[in-house]
């Protein structure tokens, strides 16, 4: 089909060129933003905000315990639970990939239950249900041990899925290449598949660290002393004592100081992996 449209039908110039149109649209958006800022600026009760969210006197009281006790304990809870979750998660993941059906079944139930329940419910059952039923039950390192196991149980379910996904993310061709060189299954897993899977799981495992860090805010239901308190309870109690949210804001800032950079690292790693593929 020869194109019979007359050449003369020139391309119309836009009444407003895209460049101009964009400039106008952007102007409107800035205006909306400025209006919103102004509304907040005049509407908000700045005096109240400063008094209740940034009260220096109250803030002073929070230190140094906010760091030396609360943040320290939060980090201890998180890391110890991470270790428990990592080891248990690896075991569950291997069970999940086992050739023995009952292991797969047990692992599946474990994962489904612990991913499906709120951490709070796990803590309540674990922290009070079990000890009431079995009065002798004790964990090493007292509070720290109890928290590590309770939080670790929840983390293990997520980590098990991460490990499994990591192993399955290694292209099948890798295993086939290894087997076609005469490597037995176990050797191929150890030398070829697992080293590659570990790289894949670093970002989700770091993400799990962030989630655990936040979940550690729930250990208060297990009961804590002034020495084993963590960030959210410390901030919450001090806030209640003074009827002033400044300590909570400080505790929140302490969380962000850890979670935001870690989140950034996770996204960098993920982007790098996407590019490498």
């Amino acid at each position, binding site marked *: *089909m*020869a*194109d019979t*449209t007359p*050449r003369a039908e*020139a*391309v*119309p*110039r*836009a009444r407003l*060129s*895209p*460049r*101009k149109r964009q400039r106008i649209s952007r102007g409107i958006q800035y205006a909306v933003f400025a209006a919103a800022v102004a509304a907040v600026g005049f509407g908000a009760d700045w005096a109240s905000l400063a008094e209740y969210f940034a009260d220096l006197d109250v803030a002073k009281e929070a230190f140094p315990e906010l760091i030396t006790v609360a943040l320290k304990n939060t980090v201890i809870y998180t890391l110890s639970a991470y270790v428990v979750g990592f080891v248990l998660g690896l075991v569950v993941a291997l069970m999940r990939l086992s050739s023995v059906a009952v292991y797969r079944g047990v692992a599946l139930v474990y994962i489904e239950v612990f991913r499906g329940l709120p951490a709070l419910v796990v803590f309540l059952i674990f922290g009070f249900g079990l000890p009431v039923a079995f009065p002798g039950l004790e964990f090493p390192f007292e509070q720290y041990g109890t928290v590590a196991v309770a939080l670790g149980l929840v983390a293990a379910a997520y980590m098990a899925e991460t490990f499994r996904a990591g192993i399955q993310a290694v292209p099948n061709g890798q295993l086939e290449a290894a087997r076609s060189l005469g490597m037995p299954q176990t050797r191929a897993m150890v030398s070829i598949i697992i080293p590659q899977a570990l790289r894949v799981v670093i970002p989700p495992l770091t993400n799990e660290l962030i989630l655990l860090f936040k979940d550690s805010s729930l250990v208060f239901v297990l009961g804590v002393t002034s020495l084993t308190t963590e960030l959210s309870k410390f901030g919450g109690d001090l806030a209640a004592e003074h009827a002033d949210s400044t300590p909570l804001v400080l505790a929140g800032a302490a969380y962000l100081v850890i979670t935001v950079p870690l989140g950034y690292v996770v996204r960098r790693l993920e982007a790098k992996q996407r590019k490498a593929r």
Partner: protein
Amino acid sequence: MSTVSPAAPAVEIVGLRKSFGDLLVLKGIDATVEPGEVVCVIGPSGSGKSTLLRCVNLLEQPDDGKVIVNGVELTDPDVDIDAARRRVGMVFQQFNLFPHLTVLDNLTIAQRKVLRRGKAEADAVAFENLEKVGVADKARVFPAKLSGGQQQRVAIARALSMNPQVMLFDEPTSALDPELVGDVLGVMRKLADEGMTMLVVTHEMQFAREVADKVLFMDGGVVVEEGPAAQVISDPRHERTKTFLRRVLDPTHQDPT
């Protein structure tokens, strides 16, 4: 086949330059496609062929130089770029059919939303073009149900449905199984015979030799050699062109580098 007219060129590219970050990809390209002419662009991977094509319908913004299509300078910042693009059809290596729309809707959505054609007219144009590429029976199915060759023919029909004055093809058969390449090249040959103006990036030397009026050989962001198809492919002047063609045309007679 070649119907060179005394009118202005269909596509005129003048001093086109484009870089991505520090990488200068097009180092001043000049080229012309006359109305009704078929121009093939060949060259090694990374030489800038796709970038050149994408600059012609401004999918990439050139850093410098002019692109003039049927007398309208697309690189003029005040031109209505959406209106201008409608005159230029583009076919991609990866087909890029809209997977959430049926074949028919793939062909009519832009007609209706952009050209504001009514449903009856849009459908008629769509079926006419689906007939032309030989997949009219697939109008009601989704792209995922089609073979690669069928998908690419639908993509050609979709571009044709906007009544473009020029068609750009970027390696239209590279993603296809060898057995399916022929169908698509057949459609392109038919289009050329009907007088469509075409600018084609391809590795199919046989197609270039038989169908193209002119061949450009690009390497390292410049046009190294340019001329009638028979001459450039069968009797290249430049050493780099010779090496490239020897590798592509006769892959088995060669030692590892």
